């Protein structure tokens, strides 16, 4: 934190802060506000024209069956919740033993997991498609859930390791002496203590899978499993011209929960993000 000495410096800083704050606010929010305005506008070319408000784009996107938007939402939610939940559970077991049992090759395993998260997605996508196709799972929920679990496991694992290593080992050693198995110790002793960390991890895993694009683009072909980001990206107008109002209404509906989550759990998300990045 800057500690400022002279009154002049202090005034200058206050001015700079005000300017910076307004600039940052505009930069961060203008696109989102524009999205909302377009979704609620009769026409997309309202700048410099009269603004006529309407909710018809929202009604259209939610009630037109041929747009499949509601189905995309269900797909996205089901796939993300399942992947984030399963990954967090599996990763917590792995991260727990990785922090508690020193074993041969531990560093090698940890480094391998870390390096997996660095692989560019395009290096995986081609053969991932072949594997999923060979298993007959293209365009199914499971066909996306399994790759997503694999894809976010390294990050999840890494964040959880940083949380678990902060819990004093004496606590679970005491449980061992009382005859608890590692699994029981994990569930009854470590989980309650690491609850905020688990929650942050779950949130991050959800946001990452919910936003994922390339795998979802390659592994789905229609509304049976297509997720919202791909659905919105591939939106074509019925009559040629892009229905911007409808696309933005869909974007608003999709973004709303994500934004709410970001605002409500800001501290958790920031903590998880910095841990994932800095420990990595």
């Amino acid at each position, binding site marked *: 934190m800057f500690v400022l000495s002279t009154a002049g410096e202090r005034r200058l800083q206050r001015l700079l802060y005000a300017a910076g704050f307004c600039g*940052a606010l505009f930069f961060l929010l203008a696109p989102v506000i524009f999205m909302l305005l377009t979704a609620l506008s009769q026409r997309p070319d309202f700048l410099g024209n009269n603004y006529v408000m309407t909710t018809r784009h929202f009604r259209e996107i939610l009630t037109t069956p041929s747009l499949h938007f509601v189905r995309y939402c269900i797909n996205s939610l089901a796939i993300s919740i399942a992947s984030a939940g399963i990954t967090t559970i599996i990763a917590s077991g792995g991260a727990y033993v990785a922090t508690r049992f020193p074993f041969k090759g531990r560093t090698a395993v940890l480094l391998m997991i870390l390096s997996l998260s660095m692989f560019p997605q395009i290096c995986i996508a081609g053969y991932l498609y*072949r594997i999923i196709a060979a298993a007959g799972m293209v365009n199914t929920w499971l066909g996306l859930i399994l790759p997503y679990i694999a894809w976010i496991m390294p990050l999840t694992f890494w964040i959880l390791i940083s949380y678990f290593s902060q819990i004093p080992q004496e606590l679970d050693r005491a449980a061992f002496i009382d005859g608890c198995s590692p699994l029981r110790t994990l569930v009854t002793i470590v989980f309650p203590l690491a609850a905020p960390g688990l929650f942050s991890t779950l949130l991050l895993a959800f946001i990452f899978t919910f936003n994922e694009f390339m795998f979802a683009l390659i592994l789905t072909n229609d509304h049976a499993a297509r997720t919202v980001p791909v659905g919105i990206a591939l939106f074509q107008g019925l009559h040629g011209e892009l229905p911007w109002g409808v696309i933005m209404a869909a974007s608003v509906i999709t973004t709303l929960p994500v934004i709410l989550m970001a605002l409500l759990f800001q501290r958790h998300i920031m903590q998880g993000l910095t841990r994932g990045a800095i420990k990595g």
Partner: protein
Amino acid sequence: MGKRISRASSDTVWLAVLLMPALLLPVALILMPALCTFVNGCMQDVTFMPRRWAGLANYARLVQDPALFHSLRFTLLFIAVSVPLELACGLLLALLMQVQSPLRGMLRALVLIPWAIPAAIAGRVWELIYSYNWGPANYLVKLTGAPAVNWLGSSTGAFLAIVIADLWKTVPFVAIILLAGLSAIPEHLYRQAEVDGASFIRRFVAITLPLLRPVMIVAILFRTIDALRIFDLIYILTSGGPGGATSSLSLLGYTYFVGGDFGYGSAISTLIFLIALLVALLVVRIGRFGSSMR
């Protein structure tokens, strides 16, 4: 003694039971496809034709492919322009977020919004912003009296458009990482410097920047590798156009996979991986070198 052994062996069992599931899927669905892709770079693998070993034929084709050259140049230029800008803006934003003020909590929450929005949706919103006739980007440009910019239809415009949209999406992440670094700098250093009469700028250059260096390096590493594999935003904003001017390496690889030329697509993917690896080693190396100098 017997008890001790059984304890140790049950530890091994638990280790396997709890650790294996965490490794299984990443190995099967990340590592394996990636390794297959690397091998496949040396195969002739085109739809409706038998797959056969091709040695370095795909790579020989790579070297002479003008589309690849274009892609490589675009991607490297994109990294060179966007990563420094992201760092600069991210640092500014992080400093703003650190200032004690009643607005601090609000800023820290709002900063997550661009980060949390799916890149695909951000792409759609920016596509609309860049609309030639009635997008707000040109509305602002015209307010200043300048002629409208053909954002997505000219190669310079499209490049700028992608850089700006990408900045919006990624600066928050950089800022959050740098904020963590800023918060870790002990406050007494600043007080000491203030007692010594160091100015605002002097304190920033002498204390903040050097102590922020390790976090900066992490941010550079993350952002460079991410910028190298940029896909979503470009897929939506320009689809690589106009005329392939903004086709990133990932997008080029994708078009070959979709087009059925798996061998060549794999060769391009392998190239992307090798560049990523090189970048990672380089950044880590430079980071270490700098800290050992101090």
